[in-house]
C-alpha cells in the first residue's frame, strides 16, 4: 500500500521595510515613484511615512503597469493602501494639521502601504481597520 507523503508548505521570504518621509521628501515625483517601485519589486512590503500626492499615486500605477507590460521578474503589480487620520477634528486641529503638513512637505499623519501582488494578495480596508492578506 502506498503511503502518501504530505509535502511541507514552503514560506517564501519577504521583508517589511519602513521608509521615513525624510527619505523621499527632497525627491521629485518621478524619482519618488521609481524609488518606491524599486523597493517593492525586490519583494519588500513597504510602509511609507506620509502619503503621495494623488498625481503621484496615478504615476505609481502607470509605472507599475509599464513594469508588468515589460514582463520584468514575473511582476504582477502592487497592492496599495493609505491609512490617514480623517477622523472628526475641530477647526483649530485642522489648521494645526495643515500647518504641520505645509512645513514638513507631506501628510506625516498618514501611512502608505505598498506591497508586490505576488506576496500581498489583497489589502482590505474599511474605516476602522486594515488587513493584509498574504499569498503563500
Amino acid at each position, binding site marked *: 500500500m502506498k503511503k502518501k507523503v504530505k509535502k511541507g508548505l514552503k514560506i517564501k521570504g519577504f521583508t517589511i521595510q519602513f521608509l521615513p518621509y525624510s527619505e523621499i521628501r527632497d525627491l521629485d515625483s518621478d524619482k519618488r515613484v521609481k524609488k518606491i517601485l524599486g523597493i517593492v519589486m525586490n519583494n519588500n512590503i513597504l510602509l511609507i511615512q506620509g502619503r503621495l500626492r494623488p498625481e503621484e499615486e496615478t504615476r505609481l*500605477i*502607470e509605472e507599475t503597469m*509599464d513594469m*508588468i*507590460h515589460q514582463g520584468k521578474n514575473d511582476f*504582477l*503589480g502592487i497592492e496599495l493602501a493609505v491609512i490617514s487620520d480623517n477622523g472628526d477634528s475641530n477647526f483649530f486641529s485642522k489648521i494645526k494639521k495643515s500647518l504641520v503638513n505645509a512645513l514638513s512637505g507631506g501628510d506625516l499623519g498618514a501611512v502608505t502601504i505598498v506591497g508586490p501582488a505576488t506576496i500581498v494578495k489583497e489589502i482590505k*480596508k474599511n474605516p476602522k481597520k486594515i488587513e493584509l492578506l498574504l499569498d503563500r
Partner: protein
Amino acid sequence: MPVRIIRNFFKRIFSNIFKNKKEVKLGFYGPPNVGKTSLANRICKDFTGEEIGSVSKVPHETRNVQFKEKVEIEYKGKKLTFKLVDTPGIATKIDYEEFLKYKMKKGEAKERAKEATQGVIESIKWLDDMDMVVIVLDATENPYNQVNITIVGNLVARKIPVLIVANKIDLKKADIKKIEAAFPEYDVIGISVKYGENLEEFYESIFDLSKKI
C-alpha cells in the same frame, strides 16, 4: 459689404467658440468589471441607437479608451450634448492567470493582460481632458479600495466635477450605504444598468453636475 464681412467674421468666431463648449466631455472611470461600458452603452442606445463598446464577464474587456460624440441627452425638457468617453478599468495589478478561469487560452490571456496594462495607462492620461466624470463602482464590493480614492483625489485636484454611481444594486450583496459612507462629500446614485433601475435619478444628477463645470 464691409459691414457684412465683419458681421460674418464675428458670427463664425462666436459659433466656433460655443460649438466647442456645447459638447461636454463626460468620462466613465472606475475599477475593472463594474459596468462602465454597460452604462455608457445604455446611454448611447437610449439616445443614439448605437452602443459604444462590447461588454463581458471577463475583466478588462475594455482595453482602449472608446468615444461616442454628439450624444444628445434629453431630460425633463432640458437638453445637453455629450462626448462620452468610456475608459479601461484602472487596477494596480494584472495577472493573466485570472483570465484562464474564464476558459481562455494561455496565449490569449497573456495578450489580454498586456493590452489591459496599456489600457490603464491610457485611461489615466485621459483624466486631464474630462469636463466631468462618473465614477462607476460595484455596489457589492468594498468601496475603500485605494484605486477609487486615487481616482477621486486626482479629479478633485483637477477641479473636475464627480458623480459616484453604484451599479449592480439588483444584487443581494449590494450595500449603497457603505458607498455613501466612503464618499460623504459626493453625490452617490445607486443604479442597476442591467435592469434599468433608477436611471431617471442618474440623468437628473448628470444635468445637476453639468452646472458645476
